[in-house]
C-alpha cells in the first residue's frame, strides 16, 4: 500500500511540478489551440475531406465513438486508444498527429493536476484485438474512420473545455 501511494505520488510529481511552472490559463489556452491544430491537420489530409458522413462503416468497433461528456481521465483514455491506432498506421502524415495527441494527453494531465484531481497516466494498452488483421485488409477504411472519429471527439472535447474545465 505504502509503495502504491508512493509510486502514485512519484508518478504525478512531474505534473505537479509543471502545474506550478505553467499558469493554468496558459495550459487551457494551449490545450484548446492544440485541439484546433489537430482538427485542422485532419482537415488538411485530402482523403479525409471527401468522406461522406452519411455512410456508416461497420467492423471497426475498436475505434472509440463519440461521447458527448467525458471526464479528463476518460478523455485521456480515449486519446490513448486513438494514439495507439495512429501509431499502427503506416501513413507518415499521422505520425505528427500522434505526437500532438501525446502532448494533448500531457496537457490534460496537467489540467487535472491543477484542478486537484490528478489521475494516473493510461499505461500502454494491450494490442487491440484484430487491429493487425483489420489494418492489413482495410487500411484505407481504418485511417479514414479513425481520423474522422478523432476529429469529432476532439471537437466535442473542445466544446466541453469551453464549457467547463473541471475534472
Amino acid at each position, binding site marked *: 500500500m505504502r509503495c502504491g501511494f508512493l509510486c502514485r505520488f512519484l508518478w504525478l510529481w*512531474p505534473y505537479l511540478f*509543471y502545474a506550478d*511552472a*505553467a499558469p493554468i490559463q496558459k495550459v487551457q489556452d*494551449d490545450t484548446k*489551440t*492544440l485541439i*484546433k*491544430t489537430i482538427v*485542422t*491537420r485532419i482537415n*488538411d489530409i485530402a482523403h479525409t475531406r471527401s468522406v461522406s458522413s452519411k455512410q456508416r462503416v461497420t467492423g471497426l468497433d475498436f475505434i472509440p465513438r463519440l461521447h458527448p461528456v467525458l471526464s479528463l481521465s476518460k478523455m485521456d483514455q480515449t486519446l490513448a486508444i486513438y494514439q495507439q491506432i495512429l501509431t499502427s498506421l503506416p501513413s507518415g502524415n499521422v*505520425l*505528427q498527429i500522434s*505526437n*500532438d495527441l*501525446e*502532448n494533448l494527453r*500531457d*496537457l490534460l494531465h*496537467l489540467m487535472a493536476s491543477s484542478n486537484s484531481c490528478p489521475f494516473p497516466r493510461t499505461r500502454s494498452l494491450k494490442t487491440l484485438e484484430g487491429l493487425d488483421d483489420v489494418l492489413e485488409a482495410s487500411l484505407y477504411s481504418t485511417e479514414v474512420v479513425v481520423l474522422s472519429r478523432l476529429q469529432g471527439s476532439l471537437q466535442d472535447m473542445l466544446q466541453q473545455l469551453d464549457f467547463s474545465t473541471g475534472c
Partner: protein
Amino acid sequence: MACQKFCMALLQWELIYVITAFNLAYPSTPWRFKLFCMPPNTTYDFLLPAGISKNTSNLDGYYEPLLEAKFNSSGTYYSKLTSKTTFHCCVWSEENENCSVQADNIEGKAFVSTVNSLAFQQIGANWNIQCWMKEDLELLICYIEPLFKNSFKNYDLKVHLLYVLPEVLEEPPLVPQKGNFQLVQCNCSAHKCECHVSVPAAKLNCTLSMYLNITSGRVIFQSPLMSVQPITIVKPDPPLGLHMEITDSGGLNISWSSSTLVPFQLQYQVKYSENSTSKREADEIVSATSLLVDGVLPGSSYEVQVRSKRLDGPGTWSDWSTPVIFTTQDVIYFPPKILTSVGSNVSFNCIYKNENKIVSSKKIVWWMNLAEKIPESQYNIMGDHVSKVTLPSLNATRLRGKFTYDAVYCCNENECHHRYAELYVVDVNINIICETDGYLTKMTCRWSTNAIQSLAGSTLQLRYYRSTLYCSDVPSIHSTSEPKDCHLQRDGFYECIFQPIFLLSGYTMWIRINHSLGSLDSPPTCVVPNSMIKPLPPTSVKAEITAKVGLLKISWKKPIFPENNLQFQIRYGLNGKEIQWKMYEVYDAKSKSVSLPVPDLCAVYAAQVRCKRLDGVGYWSNWSAPAYTVVMDVKVPTRGPEFWRIIHEDSSKKERNVTLLWKPLMKNDSLCHVRRYVVKHHTAGNGIWSEDVGNHTKFTFQWTEQTHSVTVLAVNSIGASFANFNLTLSWPMSKVNIVQSLNAYPLNSSCVILSWMLSLSDYNLMYFILEWKILNENNEIKWHRIPSSVTKYYIHDHFIPIEKYQFSLYPIFMEGVGKPKIINDFTQDDIEKHQTDPGLYVIVPIIISSLTLLLGALLILHQRMKKLFWDDVPNPKNCSWAQGLNFQKSTDSL
C-alpha cells in the same frame, strides 16, 4: 603373513589401484602436462635412490638434475634397441602426482592403470606437452618437446597426432574406433614439434579425443588417449596497445586493449618495474584493461608487460606482451593539458626534479606564458613535492601566432624548465536559434561555430533532451540526452531538423565540443516549438483601388496554422524598380482587409502582407507574394478640360466658325481614363444640346447667335465630370476692353515676362486667356489660362530671338470673352535698355584700367622729380666740408 600383507599394501600403493576403465579416455585440464614413457615389460617397482622419499613433493628442483643424468644414460639404451619397440606413456600434470598408463594399445581393449609418476620419471623418456586453442578459436596447437633434450639428439623425431572430434556433444566420451581417428603430422625442428588441428567453431564445446605417436628411430612412444574440450584451453594472444600516461591526479595509468575475438571476459596480469632513485617492482592481476600506479616520480622509467587469461573458467595465460618503457620527464604536470570553457576555474599540479633532486613544493612558483607570474595566493602545497596552482574565471585563450593555448610553467624560484602545461580556454557560448515551420511539423535549429574556430581537431555535436511539456526556468544538461545530426550549410551555420515534433514539449539542447583533451558543453538552451513558429505568409492577397471610394484596399486570408490569433503587417507602395514601402499594422486577428488612402488613384500599387502570433511569440512570416492594383476608373473626372477657342470669320459668307481646343486631361483629373469628351452648347434660341466629340481634343462649330455658351465635359466609365469650364461667346462682350496695357519682356530664350494693367469694369472677370504665336506665320497658337487676380505672368517656352511674337491677353467675363490686348513684339524701351546694358560691361573695365595707368604714371613722375631735385647734393664721404652733416634730416625737413 605380515610380510605378505605389507607386500600387498606396497603393491597397492605402487600400483595404487588398478582401475579397469574400459573405453575411458584420460581427461586432462589444464592442457599442459608431461608425458612419461617406459619400455614394455618394465616393472613398476623401480627403486628410488636411497634417501629420496617417494613423496614427489620433495622432488622439485633437487631431483631433476639427477633424473637427467639418469636419463642421459638411458639414451644408450634406446640406441641399442634393434627391433621396433613401443613405449607406453603416462600423462603427468602438476595437479596430479599420479600418472595414467595404458596397458594395451589404443585401438583394442585397454585398461588404464594409475601409477606413481615417479617411476616413469626415473626410467623412461619424458616429454613436455602443451596444447591450447588459439585466440581465433579455429586452431588447436600442441607443442611437444623432450624434457631432456639430449636424449634424442641423434634421431629424427616424427610426431603424429591422432584425434577424433565427434559430430555431437557426447558425455561421457567413448573411445573411438581405430578408423575414426584423423591423423595430423606435426612439424618438428630441433627437438620441438608443433601440431595443428583445425577445430570448427560449432565443435568448440565438443570433447576432442587424441593421442600422440612419437617415433624416434625404432622406438615409438605412444601417449594414452586424452580428451579435452577446446573451449577450455583457449590461450589468448598477448594484449596489444600497451600505453602509459600520467593521469590528471599524478598517477601512472597503464592501459592496453583487450582481445575482441574471445567469447569470454579476460583477466590480466601486469608486471612493472620502476627505475628511479630507488627501484620497485610489482605484479598485479586485474580484470580491467588498465591499472593505475600511484606516486609517479619525475625522471623515472617504467617497464611494463601484460598477459591475459580467461577470467572465469579454465584457460591458459597468454604470452607476455612486448615490454614497453615509459620515462617521465624532469617536470611532471598533471594534468599536462586542460581544455575548459570561459569563466571556469582550473588547477594544475606539478612535481619538479632539478639536478637529480626533487624541488620542494614550497619553492615552486608558477608563470603564465613566461610573461607574467601567477600570484602566490593561487598556489596550494599538496605535499612535499607537489605544488598546485588554481586559475579562476578564465578568459578565452587568445591566439598567439600558431599557438592556440596558454603555456603554464612550473618553476624553481627563478629557473623554469622548458616543459609547460597547456591550457585551452574556449568560448562555448554558442547561440542555437530554432524555427518551427508554418505547417507545425518541423523545427529547424541553426548554430554557428565561429566562436570556437580556434580549437583545431575538435568535433561538434548537438545534443538534446525533450521534456514532456514546456521548458524549466533554468535549462540544464541532462544525462539522458540524444545526439542530433546536423549538416553544415554554405553560410557556415549548422542546421539540424526535428521532424515530426512535439509542439508543446521543451527541447533542451546544447553543443558538445569533443576534443582529444576532453569535451565541453555550451550553455543549454530550451525551446518549445510552439513558441518558435514562423507562420506561412497570408494567402490570396489582393490589392485594388476601390471604385467611388478611392482607397487602396488590401485583402488576405490567414494561413491555416497556427490556430493562435495573428497580427498582420502590410506594406504598400507605388510599383517601380525600387518601391518606397509604407507600413501599416493590423492587430485585429479577425481582420481580413484594410483600406488605405493613397495619393494617386490612377497608379499601380504593390502590396504585401505578413503575419505573426498576436501575443508576439515566434517570428514574422515571410512577406506574401506581391499583389498589384489594376488602374481603372475610380470616380468621375474631377473636372472637364480647360479649353479655348479660335474664331475663323468668313466675311464673304458672313459665317463664323469657332474651333474649340483643349488639352487632354491627365490621370489625376480623369480618374483614370477619359473615354470621350462632350461639348455642351447653350444658346438663347436653341436652348441646350450636347455633341459627343469622342477622344478628339478639337471641335468646330458655327457661331450663329449673338451669345453662345459652350462647356466641355470629360467622360470616363463612371460618368461625366461635374466641375467644368464654361466659355461664352458674345458679340457685345467682345468690345469690352479692360486691359489698358500689355508689356512683354524677354528674360532669355525660354522665358518671357508679361505684365499688364487693367481698368475698372462692371463685368465679372473670371480669368484671362493669354495667347501667343510667332507673328506672320500660321503656326500653332499657344495659350494659357491665367487667374483674374494675376497682373504678371511668366511664359516658359522656346522663344527664337530672331522671330517676332504676338501676345494677346483676353479677359474672360462671365458674360463672355472681352476685347483682347494684342502686342506684336517685345516692349521696345526695354529692348534698347537691354541692348545698352552690354556697354556697361565694356566701359567699367576701361575706366578701371585707365585709373590704374594714371596712378602708375604719377608714381613714376614722383620718383623722377625726387631724383632731379637731389642730383646736386654732395657726397659726405668725398667732401670734407659736408662731413658731420645729417642730410637725411635735412631732406626730411625739406
